[in-house]
């Protein structure tokens, strides 16, 4: 009897820990959104950086995957699965590509933060972006089910990514201000560096998205995991606008 009770207690304990662990990933998001000052100060002090990175990584990958699946659903189930895998890959690869630049530039201008602290800050930005994308997902799903304009759907997603990304990098800038500047003598320069890096990040991200396309999937074409290279992201967005407005046909 006692053994059974002990076993149940242990199971309950394990279940509780597991639940706490799962909720922990999402609680980090709440902390970022509600107590960002504290969150960034903890990063500055190096408190729980590893845990934060893990939690943000897990939650942002899950949210990106969900949003990617919504985007790909307009074409086919295969495209949905493909986009669910490719969207987290897009953001994480962009992070990996751009992280050293930010770190070494900051280092060059007097920052004393470690690479992991820099990566945590970038992950914060990505996590905020992923949460905003998730919050947009019902809207995008609504348009997915009620419109048939491929170009409109594509541009809707570009708009959603732009808004979410901008808010995300604003978080990064704010975080850098708290974590790295610290009122030092070269704080102004470092702020400029961060904004220049954000522009670089946007360019790398958009080119990465172009390389990993399709995410939505053209309705007239069979499923493709990757499309052949050629053209660029900005030209395609302009052409899509042109087609919606009736000036050109995207070929």
């Amino acid at each position: 009897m006692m053994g059974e009770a002990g076993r149940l207690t242990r199971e309950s304990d394990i279940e509780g820990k597991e639940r706490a662990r799962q909720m922990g990933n999402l609680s980090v998001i709440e902390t970022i959104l509600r107590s960002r000052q504290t969150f960034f100060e903890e990063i500055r002090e190096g408190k729980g950086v590893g845990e934060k990175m893990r939690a943000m990584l897990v939650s942002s990958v899950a949210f990106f995957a969900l949003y990617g699946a919504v985007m790909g659903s307009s074409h086919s189930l295969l495209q949905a699965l493909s986009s669910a895998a490719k969207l987290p890959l897009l953001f994480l690869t962009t992070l990996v590509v751009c992280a050293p630049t930010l770190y070494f530039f900051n280092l060059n201008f007097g920052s004393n933060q470690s690479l992991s602290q820099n990566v945590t800050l970038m992950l914060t930005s990505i996590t905020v972006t992923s949460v905003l994308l998730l919050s947009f997902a019902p809207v995008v799903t609504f348009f997915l089910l009620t419109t048939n304009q491929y170009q409109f759907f594509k541009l809707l997603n570009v708009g959603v990514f732009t808004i979410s990304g901008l808010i995300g990098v604003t978080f990064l800038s704010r975080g850098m201000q708290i974590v790295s500047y610290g009122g030092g003598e070269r704080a102004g320069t470092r702020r400029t560096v961060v904004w220049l890096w954000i522009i670089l990040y946007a360019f790398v991200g958009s080119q990465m998205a172009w390389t990993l396309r399709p995410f939505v999937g053209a309705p007239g074409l069979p499923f493709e995991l990757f499309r052949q290279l050629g053209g660029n992201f900005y030209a395609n967005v302009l052409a899509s606008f042109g087609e919606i407005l009736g000036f050109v046909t995207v070929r």
Partner: protein
Amino acid sequence: MRESERHRVDEMLDLLAEEVADRLRTKFWLYSAREVDLPADSTTERERPDESLGEAGEPRAAAPEAGSGAPEAGSAGPEAGSAAAEAGYSTREERRAAPAAPEADREVSIEVGRALDAEPEKEPETEPEEAESERGLEPGLEPGPEASLEAGPEAGPQAEAPSSSPVPSHTARLLGRLALGLLVALVLINIPFNRHGTTLATAMPDNRALVIRNGLVVKEEDDPEIYVFENGEFRWISSLDAFQARGYTWEDVHIVEDGFLEDYAMGPPIHVLVKCNGSPHIYRVEGEKKRWIVDIEAFEAAGHVWEDVQFVSCATIRSLPNGETIPPGNGPAPEP
């Protein structure tokens, strides 16, 4: 005061204001729902002493409003609050741990004690989540601001430290539910509902959503002919054989509105050429008819190459009715 400390204090004050507003809303809702005066030991009553205090022990502006909801129930609250404020204790726990009050204040202290003793030992964070939801509070958040308050501004970053601990909170739960709901919706809209594999997500007619690329197969609504887009022009697929020879299926065909093709250049048609063993003649299949190609010059003039020729049985060729010869006027066509 440092910039960061000022931010922290501002954040704590915001959280405090939100909580007070929530509790006031809850109280008014409770009063209006019951339309009776609450007993002195009700939940709202035991919250009153705490609410009558500001962060630094000053009476809050919101307190008189709370009192106006239940005048007789609030009698102990303000007194208790002011006594605690004088003592400099801003929270329940600090007031509990306070040293014995001077003789003159003993009566007020007893009031404070009664008000506080009326509280159950369980704090809100140990209450069931449903109860917290009914009170309009955010369960996971409650420990945050209170902990901040109880620790006071001097506590520094530790005051908000619990907020980053893995505590299931309202926003986190909401995010989890949103993600789960979205996942369910995704599964539902991707379930095929007919034998063609159409799903809700792809059910919208897509004629306006076409991307014109090589390999796109289209058919105008009121025209039986099928065209394929190749290298900047649409080419007519002249027969079912040619259609099948290229590996197309009906699912590849996109119905477009009449006149859609008028905007595009038309290329040479796509034909199937057939021949059978034992016969030197080559025929071009167009629609349901076969057209005999008279000689090699005509064959080349029509732009055909030997790779286009398919070998079929002579009976199959014979079963097709004869059309006009290529070039015309060389009939009748010989049978293979």
